Protein backbone atom coordinates (compact mmCIF):
# COMPACT_ATOMS: atom_id res chain seq x y z
CA UNK A 1 0.00 0.00 0.00
CA UNK A 2 1.73 3.24 -1.14
CA UNK A 3 1.99 5.79 1.63
CA UNK A 4 -1.29 7.56 2.33
CA UNK A 5 -1.04 11.25 3.08
CA UNK A 6 -4.18 11.49 5.21
CA UNK A 7 -6.44 8.57 6.09
CA UNK A 8 -9.98 9.78 6.70
CA UNK A 9 -11.87 7.35 8.99
CA UNK A 10 -15.63 7.99 8.82
CA UNK A 11 -18.26 6.30 11.00
CA UNK A 12 -21.16 8.69 10.39
CA UNK A 13 -24.25 7.70 8.35
CA UNK A 14 -24.53 9.35 4.89
CA UNK A 15 -27.01 12.00 6.00
CA UNK A 16 -24.91 13.16 8.97
CA UNK A 17 -23.52 16.68 8.37
CA UNK A 18 -19.98 15.56 9.13
CA UNK A 19 -20.10 13.08 6.23
CA UNK A 20 -20.30 15.88 3.68
CA UNK A 21 -17.51 17.79 5.46
CA UNK A 22 -15.33 14.67 5.28
CA UNK A 23 -15.94 14.16 1.56
CA UNK A 24 -15.08 17.81 0.91
CA UNK A 25 -11.81 17.46 2.85
CA UNK A 26 -10.46 14.63 0.65
CA UNK A 27 -7.27 15.57 -1.23
CA UNK A 28 -5.22 13.65 -3.82
CA UNK A 29 -3.00 11.10 -2.03
CA UNK A 30 -5.56 10.62 0.78
CA UNK A 31 -7.74 7.56 1.38
CA UNK A 32 -11.20 7.12 2.91
CA UNK A 33 -12.03 4.26 5.30
CA UNK A 34 -15.74 3.67 5.99
CA UNK A 35 -16.61 1.94 9.27
CA UNK A 36 -19.79 1.37 11.36
CA UNK A 37 -22.72 3.46 10.01
CA UNK A 38 -20.59 5.05 7.27
CA UNK A 39 -20.58 1.79 5.30
CA UNK A 40 -24.19 2.65 4.36
CA UNK A 41 -22.64 5.08 1.86
CA UNK A 42 -21.75 2.17 -0.40
CA UNK A 43 -25.48 1.76 -1.14
CA UNK A 44 -25.13 5.12 -2.89
CA UNK A 45 -21.87 4.25 -4.68
CA UNK A 46 -19.99 6.96 -2.82
CA UNK A 47 -16.77 5.35 -4.03
CA UNK A 48 -17.70 6.35 -7.58
CA UNK A 49 -18.00 9.99 -6.56
CA UNK A 50 -14.71 10.51 -4.74
CA UNK A 51 -11.27 10.67 -6.38
CA UNK A 52 -9.43 8.75 -3.64
CA UNK A 53 -9.30 5.03 -2.78
CA UNK A 54 -12.26 3.99 -0.62
CA UNK A 55 -12.10 1.11 1.87
CA UNK A 56 -14.99 -0.35 3.88
CA UNK A 57 -14.71 -2.50 7.02
CA UNK A 58 -16.10 -5.92 6.06
CA UNK A 59 -17.68 -6.89 9.44
CA UNK A 60 -19.75 -3.69 9.40
CA UNK A 61 -20.68 -4.16 5.73
CA UNK A 62 -21.80 -7.77 6.26
CA UNK A 63 -23.66 -6.94 9.50
CA UNK A 64 -25.84 -4.52 7.57
CA UNK A 65 -26.60 -7.04 4.87
CA UNK A 66 -24.61 -5.06 2.33
CA UNK A 67 -22.31 -7.93 1.48
CA UNK A 68 -25.03 -9.13 -0.89
CA UNK A 69 -25.26 -6.02 -3.08
CA UNK A 70 -25.54 -7.44 -6.64
CA UNK A 71 -23.65 -4.60 -8.25
CA UNK A 72 -20.76 -5.28 -5.88
CA UNK A 73 -19.72 -1.92 -4.59
CA UNK A 74 -16.25 -0.99 -5.78
CA UNK A 75 -15.15 0.05 -2.30
CA UNK A 76 -12.46 -2.44 -1.26
CA UNK A 77 -13.58 -4.52 1.72
CA UNK A 78 -10.96 -4.80 4.45
CA UNK A 79 -10.79 -6.68 7.75
CA UNK A 80 -9.53 -5.37 11.09
CA UNK A 81 -5.80 -6.20 10.56
CA UNK A 82 -5.77 -4.40 7.21
CA UNK A 83 -7.53 -1.44 8.86
CA UNK A 84 -4.70 -1.27 11.38
CA UNK A 85 -2.12 -1.35 8.55
CA UNK A 86 -3.91 1.48 6.78
CA UNK A 87 -3.77 3.66 9.87
CA UNK A 88 -0.09 2.77 10.39
CA UNK A 89 0.87 3.58 6.79
CA UNK A 90 -0.87 6.95 6.76
CA UNK A 91 1.08 10.10 7.63
CA UNK A 92 -2.00 11.66 9.21
CA UNK A 93 -5.33 10.20 10.39
CA UNK A 94 -8.58 12.10 10.80
CA UNK A 95 -11.38 10.32 12.68
CA UNK A 96 -14.54 12.15 11.66
Amino acid at each position, binding site marked *: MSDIKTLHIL*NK*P*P*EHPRTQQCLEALNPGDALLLI*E*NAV*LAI*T*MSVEAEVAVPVFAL*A*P*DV*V*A*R*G*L*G*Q*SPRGASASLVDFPVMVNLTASAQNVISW
Partner: protein
Amino acid sequence: MSTLIVIDQPPYGSWAGREALDMAFSLAAFDQSVSLLFTGAGVNWLRTYQDTQEIQQKSVERNLAAASVFGVEAIYADEAASRLYRLMPDNTMAGVTVIKDRAALLRQHSHVAFAG
Protein backbone atom coordinates in the same frame (compact mmCIF):
# COMPACT_ATOMS: atom_id res chain seq x y z
CA MET B 1 -56.02 5.19 20.20
CA SER B 2 -53.00 4.07 18.16
CA THR B 3 -49.28 4.66 18.50
CA LEU B 4 -46.66 5.00 15.77
CA ILE B 5 -43.01 4.51 16.71
CA VAL B 6 -40.66 6.08 14.14
CA ILE B 7 -37.12 4.73 13.78
CA ASP B 8 -34.89 7.01 11.74
CA GLN B 9 -31.61 5.86 13.26
CA PRO B 10 -29.42 3.38 11.36
CA PRO B 11 -29.12 -0.09 12.95
CA TYR B 12 -26.07 -1.03 15.06
CA GLY B 13 -24.60 2.49 15.14
CA SER B 14 -26.46 3.45 18.34
CA TRP B 15 -28.92 1.91 20.79
CA ALA B 16 -31.66 4.47 20.16
CA GLY B 17 -33.42 2.30 17.62
CA ARG B 18 -33.41 -0.81 19.78
CA GLU B 19 -34.85 1.09 22.74
CA ALA B 20 -37.67 2.34 20.52
CA LEU B 21 -38.30 -1.21 19.31
CA ASP B 22 -38.47 -2.47 22.91
CA MET B 23 -41.00 0.27 23.67
CA ALA B 24 -43.11 -0.76 20.67
CA PHE B 25 -43.02 -4.42 21.72
CA SER B 26 -44.00 -3.52 25.29
CA LEU B 27 -46.97 -1.49 24.06
CA ALA B 28 -48.04 -4.33 21.78
CA ALA B 29 -47.65 -6.86 24.58
CA PHE B 30 -50.17 -4.82 26.60
CA ASP B 31 -52.62 -4.91 23.65
CA GLN B 32 -52.06 -1.31 22.64
CA SER B 33 -52.42 -0.65 18.92
CA VAL B 34 -48.87 0.11 17.76
CA SER B 35 -47.12 0.25 14.38
CA LEU B 36 -43.55 0.96 13.32
CA LEU B 37 -42.31 3.37 10.66
CA PHE B 38 -38.73 3.18 9.39
CA THR B 39 -37.52 6.31 7.65
CA GLY B 40 -34.21 8.00 6.79
CA ALA B 41 -31.22 5.79 7.56
CA GLY B 42 -33.64 3.71 9.68
CA VAL B 43 -34.85 1.85 6.57
CA ASN B 44 -31.57 -0.06 6.73
CA TRP B 45 -33.06 -2.05 9.63
CA LEU B 46 -35.24 -3.77 7.02
CA ARG B 47 -32.49 -5.14 4.79
CA THR B 48 -32.18 -8.96 4.63
CA TYR B 49 -29.02 -11.09 5.03
CA GLN B 50 -27.73 -9.22 8.09
CA ASP B 51 -24.77 -11.29 9.42
CA THR B 52 -23.75 -9.66 12.71
CA GLN B 53 -21.46 -12.37 14.05
CA GLU B 54 -18.27 -10.35 13.50
CA ILE B 55 -19.58 -7.27 15.33
CA GLN B 56 -20.93 -9.39 18.20
CA GLN B 57 -24.41 -7.95 18.15
CA LYS B 58 -27.80 -9.61 17.80
CA SER B 59 -29.19 -9.04 14.31
CA VAL B 60 -32.00 -6.48 14.32
CA GLU B 61 -33.48 -8.57 11.53
CA ARG B 62 -34.22 -11.30 14.12
CA ASN B 63 -35.56 -8.72 16.59
CA LEU B 64 -37.98 -7.46 14.00
CA ALA B 65 -39.14 -10.97 13.12
CA ALA B 66 -40.74 -11.02 16.59
CA ALA B 67 -42.87 -7.96 15.82
CA SER B 68 -45.89 -9.89 14.56
CA VAL B 69 -45.63 -12.33 17.50
CA PHE B 70 -45.88 -9.36 19.90
CA GLY B 71 -48.86 -8.05 17.96
CA VAL B 72 -47.28 -5.04 16.25
CA GLU B 73 -49.93 -4.10 13.69
CA ALA B 74 -47.83 -2.93 10.75
CA ILE B 75 -44.26 -2.20 9.74
CA TYR B 76 -43.99 0.74 7.33
CA ALA B 77 -40.99 1.90 5.28
CA ASP B 78 -40.63 5.36 3.78
CA GLU B 79 -40.45 5.02 -0.01
CA ALA B 80 -38.03 7.91 -0.64
CA ALA B 81 -35.57 6.63 1.98
CA SER B 82 -35.88 3.07 0.63
CA ARG B 83 -34.98 4.36 -2.83
CA LEU B 84 -32.07 6.42 -1.45
CA TYR B 85 -30.60 3.38 0.29
CA ARG B 86 -31.42 1.06 -2.63
CA LEU B 87 -33.81 -1.19 -0.73
CA MET B 88 -35.65 -3.32 -3.27
CA PRO B 89 -38.38 -5.93 -2.71
CA ASP B 90 -35.74 -8.66 -3.06
CA ASN B 91 -33.49 -7.37 -0.26
CA THR B 92 -36.21 -6.13 2.09
CA MET B 93 -37.79 -8.17 4.89
CA ALA B 94 -41.22 -9.66 4.30
CA GLY B 95 -44.30 -7.97 5.74
CA VAL B 96 -43.12 -4.39 5.18
CA THR B 97 -45.57 -1.87 3.72
CA VAL B 98 -43.88 0.89 1.70
CA ILE B 99 -45.56 4.29 2.06
CA LYS B 100 -45.26 7.46 -0.02
CA ASP B 101 -46.84 10.03 2.29
CA ARG B 102 -45.09 9.95 5.67
CA ALA B 103 -46.90 13.02 7.00
CA ALA B 104 -50.28 11.45 6.32
CA LEU B 105 -49.26 8.32 8.20
CA LEU B 106 -48.20 10.37 11.22
CA ARG B 107 -51.55 12.17 11.22
CA GLN B 108 -53.42 8.84 11.27
CA HIS B 109 -51.98 7.93 14.70
CA SER B 110 -53.00 9.50 18.01
CA HIS B 111 -49.47 9.16 19.47
CA VAL B 112 -46.21 9.36 17.54
CA ALA B 113 -42.78 8.90 19.15
CA PHE B 114 -39.33 9.03 17.56
CA ALA B 115 -36.33 6.87 18.47
CA GLY B 116 -33.51 8.68 20.27
